[in-house]
């Protein structure tokens, strides 16, 4: 397999008028630790995300990026420290977990669409069963977001009939149908071919332009430069370095960051 460039940029002017970072805290993680058995996968994570922030998380494979963002909607359970999402602390209380999950959307590397349901049904399922929205209204909302991700004409097809890029855009629309306040992306483009990467990044940029709070695990450095207001570098379960994109790329502080960037941006 050819080494991906990880530097696909979208050639259009980005509208920054609504990308405003508020003072309100969306996610607060304090002294958080997590183990898988005896393996200490996340070490003393401290992190504050304000409303409207667009954060890119990068780092070598196995450094704990996925685990970190999966802790934010409790797909993984942390063992010490605190995680507060939108004012709700994540504990073993199921009510809190449900509340957080219905306000945080998540997009996965392998899309995880429901193959037995049509695109439209994929998008209306959670609003109807979790939010108790009437079917008709849920369908209208779903069509609205499918138009946003530019595939309204596929609404009645099944996921298996769509290309990877289209499936990932449906997955984004499916999350948006729950009207989340925060969106998590776990390597949303890693399973895609270059031309499809572009259409998915385009969709994510459009989302950022609307002021969505986003945490994106990705190696697409072009996206980080264009959209992120902060880049976090993780290695061996720790946050090693974080900075605004420009200084992060041009002037990395730690040796580990330098090594990682030189590997990921090889070919420049």
């Amino acid at each position, binding site marked *: 397999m050819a080494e991906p460039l990880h530097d696909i940029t979208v050639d259009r002017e980005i509208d920054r008028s609504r990308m405003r970072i508020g003072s309100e805290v969306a996610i607060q993680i304090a002294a958080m630790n997590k183990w898988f058995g005896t393996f200490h996968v996340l070490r003393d994570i401290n992190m504050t995300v304000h409303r409207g922030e667009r954060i890119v998380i990068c780092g070598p494979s196995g450094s704990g990026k996925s685990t970190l963002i999966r802790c934010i909607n409790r797909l993984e359970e942390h063992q010490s420290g605190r995680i507060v999402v939108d004012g709700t602390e994540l504990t073993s209380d199921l009510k809190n977990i449900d509340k957080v999950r219905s306000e945080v959307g998540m997009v996965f590397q392998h899309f995880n669409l*429901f193959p037995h349901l049509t695109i439209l049904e994929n998008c209306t399922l959670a609003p109807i069963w979790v939010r108790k929205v009437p079917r008709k209204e849920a369908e209208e909302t779903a069509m609205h977001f499918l138009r946003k991700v530019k595939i309204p004409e596929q609404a009645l097809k099944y996921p298996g009939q769509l290309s990877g890029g289209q499936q990932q855009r449906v997955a984004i629309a499916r999350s948006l149908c729950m009207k989340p306040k925060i969106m998590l992306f776990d390597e949303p483009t890693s399973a895609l071919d270059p031309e499809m990467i572009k259409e998915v990044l385009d969709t994510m940029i459009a989302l950022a332009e609307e002021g969505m709070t986003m945490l994106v695990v990705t190696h697409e450095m072009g996206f980080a430069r264009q959209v992120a207001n902060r880049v976090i570098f993780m290695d061996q379960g720790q946050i090693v370095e974080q900075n605004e994109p420009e200084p992060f790329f041009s002037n990395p502080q730690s040796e580990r960051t330098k090594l990682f960037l030189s590997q990921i941006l090889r070919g420049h």
Partner: protein
Amino acid sequence: MAEIRFVRTAMLPPQEPPVSQIGAVRWVRENLFSGWLNGVLTVASAAFVVWLALHVGPWFMNAVWNAGSLAECREILAGTDGACLAVIRDRWPQLLFGFYPSELYWRPTLALLLLFVALAPALFPAVPRQLLWFSAIYPGLAYWLLWGGTLWFPVVALAGFAVGIAVFIALRPVLPLVAPFAGLVAPVFWWLFAVVPVTGLLAAVLPVGITPVRSDSFGGFTLSIIIGVTGIALSLPLGILLALGRKSDLFLVKTICVGFIEFIRGVPLITLLFTASLLLNYFLPPGTNFDIILRVVIMVTLFAAAYMAEVIRGGLAAIPRGQYEAADSLGLDYWKAMRLIVLPQALKISIPGIVNTFIGLFKDTTLVVFIGLLDPIGLSTAIRANTNWNGIYWELFLFIGAMFFVFCFGMSRYSMHLERRLKTDHR
């Protein structure tokens, strides 16, 4: 400019392909004689089929339909080879209905016809959904048609479900945690303590009923279908619950389910049936009248459910973890994720195994002959016990086999149709 000598004004139709490339000739070449080994196998199988037809054909063609006994059949055949199908003609009502009173044959027949009506909305999406209400009351209706007696009994028994739902709805605002539990326990208490007195009261006030028929009159295919259909209908939901329980994180639930499945699977069905017929009487308080057919249905259901659970567990294991995670991240709780995302996919994968279990269960109903119930096999023995038909085997077994084949083949075809209909993954 060159002079044009010929311009075609009408297009010719394409030429026929050579004989070796069309129709029957091509089909035969590709499917029967595509290599020397296939050629040999084709010839050998054809020879076998011809041999079989030559032996069985005359036996069938020569069959005697009109005779009152095997001896009469032999007389008519006068030493030639032939089937004595007269026994089917003489005894088919018994093979179908056992010792059910003959003037009441319309009742099991109607129950069977209504069964298809009740199944239709579950089997075919084109049927209006409102018919599901009929499916819901069908068990009570079928019970009443088959066993007769007062109409109030099935009505009051079905009302147990309404009682459960009412208790659940009434308690939910006050005690949300206890409500589901109370909703499950209330019907059980209703069935144990309320059904008999309430039925008696209503029957005294307003007697509506038809001639009762006792369980020991049931037999033949009526009995097979009653046990088979009830077992099938109950073992699927029970199997699903057991499979989910086996995958559960709750230690106690998991242990109980694993223990149950392993125990039932490790014991032959016939042992369970003997338990049902003999041992249960020792455990039950003296004087309780616990219907033998009901006992058998329970045992057959438990047996099939254990197998069903394992089949469904296989389907559950095939669902990628990403599906659970997507459901979780959208905020669906456990039961909703199971019902809407996981089970529809897992059951679809498991269809061949599920139908396999159904067919096995239906054929296993013939084992009840060992505890003295008169299923079709048992009846064939009973028919032979009559001096007229003493010594007749093949004809009866062929008829019974053919009947079972029709039902099982029907299930198998439906399952293939269902698999095609539900195929949405486009892999």
